[in-house]
């Protein structure tokens, strides 16, 4: 029996085989959609770049070379140099670590938070649901960027506070999804069976409801990542996100503002990095949605 046959077997003999088979089917379905392949490759390249930045980047991210400041793109400096003679290409490479950290931490904070709030609201219903969802709706109807700005203003500038502020403003959408999913499965027979066996609400929510919400969650989180990157870059641009000399892409654009009229490359190059990575998340998210959550297509 080949690995492929084992993965695609109709009656898997273990839970591991079933999960592996499902992952394999999602993977092959993704491969059939060219755009999601492009997206996946972009994200993969981003991750590899972040891991291997010390070996990929030809120069240091902070090493100054004042004799060579504001040099246009050339063979030695592919994207030119900035006002302190730092190699922009190397800074963009190092910046991928910051972008990946922000994206990862925001997802790790806001998705579980939203998931939990939504699942609790959906499972218990009644007053709990009304209070939690009222809270969620209030947050949902606020302008996200402005709210994040105000939070960072109070918490103080810096990359950690930027991550917290973005996470605070992005959980409500996940809570809504988790609630909707929970409402559809909470009266399912397998839930009643678990309850009859004496499982408490915490066990039911964590072990039986949350795992079923994950696929729609993954889709939504991937699609939202482009927005998270843009917000983080915006905070960096205003000077509230990552602080110098960190090579955060938004902050780099902000430094290049002064030179935009003559040395266009300083501000434009990091922008291309932001666009490519955001597009990658959009493509991958679109593909994942078609595979994992076909009913919501086009919304």
């Amino acid at each position, binding site marked *: 029996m080949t690995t492929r046959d084992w993965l695609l077997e109709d009656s898997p003999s273990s839970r591991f085989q079933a999960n592996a088979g499902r992952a394999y089917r999602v993977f092959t379905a993704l491969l059939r959609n060219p755009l999601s392949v492009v997206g996946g490759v972009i994200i993969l390249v981003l991750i590899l770049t972040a891991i291997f930045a010390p070996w990929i980047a030809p120069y240091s991210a902070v090493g100054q070379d004042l004799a060579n400041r504001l040099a246009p793109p050339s063979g030695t400096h592919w994207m030119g140099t900035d006002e302190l003679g730092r190699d922009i290409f190397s800074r963009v490479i190092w910046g991928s670590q910051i972008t990946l950290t922000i994206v990862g931490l925001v997802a790790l904070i806001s998705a579980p938070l939203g998931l939990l709030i939504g699942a609790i609201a959906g499972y218990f219903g009644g007053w709990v649901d*009304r209070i939690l969802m*009222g*809270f969620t*709706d*209030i*947050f949902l*109807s*606020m*302008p*996200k*960027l*402005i*709210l994040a*700005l*105000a*939070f*960072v*203003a*109070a*918490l103080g500038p810096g990359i950690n506070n930027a991550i917290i502020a973005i996470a605070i403003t992005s959980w409500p959408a996940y809570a809504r999804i988790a609630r909707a999913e929970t409402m559809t499965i909470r009266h399912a027979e397998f839930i009643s069976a678990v309850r009859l066996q004496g499982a408490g609400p915490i066990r039911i929510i964590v072990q039986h409801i949350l795992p079923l919400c994950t696929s729609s969650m993954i889709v939504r989180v991937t699609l939202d990542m*482009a*927005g998270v990157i*843009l917000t983080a*870059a*915006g905070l960096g*641009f*205003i*000077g*509230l996100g990552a602080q110098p000399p960190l090579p955060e892409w*938004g902050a780099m*654009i902000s430094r*290049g*503002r002064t030179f*935009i*009229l*003559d040395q*266009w490359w300083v*501000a*434009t190059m990091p*922008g291309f990095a*932001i*666009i490519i990575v*955001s*597009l990658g*998340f*959009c*493509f991958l998210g679109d593909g994942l949605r078609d595979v994992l959550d076909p009913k919501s297509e*086009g*919304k």
Partner: protein
Amino acid sequence: MSLEPQTTISPASISPTKRRWGRGISAILGFAATVFLTFLGLLAITFFIGRVIPIDPVLAVVGDRASKAVYEAARASMGLDQPLYIQFVQYVGNVLSGNFGMSVSTGRPVIDDISRFFPATLEMATIGIIIGVIIGVPLGVLAASRQGSWVDQIIRVVGLLGYSMPAFWLGLVGLALFYAKLRWVGGPGRLDVFYDGLVSPVTGLILVDSLIAGEYEIFWNAVSHLILPASVLGFFSLAYIARMTRSFMLDQLNQEFVTTARVKGVPERIVIWRHAFNPIRVPLITVIGLSYAGLLEGSVMIETVFSWPGIGNYLTTGLLNADMNAVLGSTLVIGAVFIFINKISDVLYRVLDPRAR
């Protein structure tokens, strides 16, 4: 949330119109309750940001070298010796009476600053949404009527770029290209320096004010300054509006009445613009309302890039100067306008679309 009264009268005993009125009133009440709660939520969030998160707001005012007496006096005068809920009530009272505190950076009451800066933002966002609607809606209709064609592909790409391009970056690139290189548009700011202050503000909208004063030269100068930032904003709303128009239109074009019209030999132009487009006007209003609100928010970034003297620029200047009153005041105003437009488009949808009643 259901506020419908539990009546024992059987539905048949009330005439249909009366029943609809009853439902209309309870819907209005429910709507008013959500709007009220949302605004209260906004106030609670800004209160939380301004009073609870900073470790010691008094220290921020008097500095860490103040004597104990000065510290206590400042604390009492800021009302911080009161319990939190009383502070919140006072805060809401202050905001409702238009007292947002003094701005540290301009030395004027925040409310005066905001009313001075808001028209600039309004002007830019309004021209932006007009650009977005005028180009976005026909583009979306075109894409839907020629699904899979190159127009459709362009819409797809524009839509995705709208989701993945930083607005401030596009603004900078636009400045470098159209202002520095091509000299097609005016640079940052609302007017060239030598036109500044020549027109007395009536509405605060320079386009309107200069026309009232009959200063056509200033009008065209303002247009040349406004067109680039408004187009950048318009691009983002265009991306969203075109995408939504396309998907609404596709829904309609797959309906049977459209096929019937085509079979009967109705010209394609009329099928598209009358049969298919008419039903989507109502959801489009909601989409346009949402993106208008989004533009007011997006203008914060654009204003920073273009040194546009609007509320967004005021907000970011406040952020950099640790001017919390200015920050929270602008957050409140932008948030309130955002919520207001959102809710209005929601109401319009319900009023105009008979299916949503």
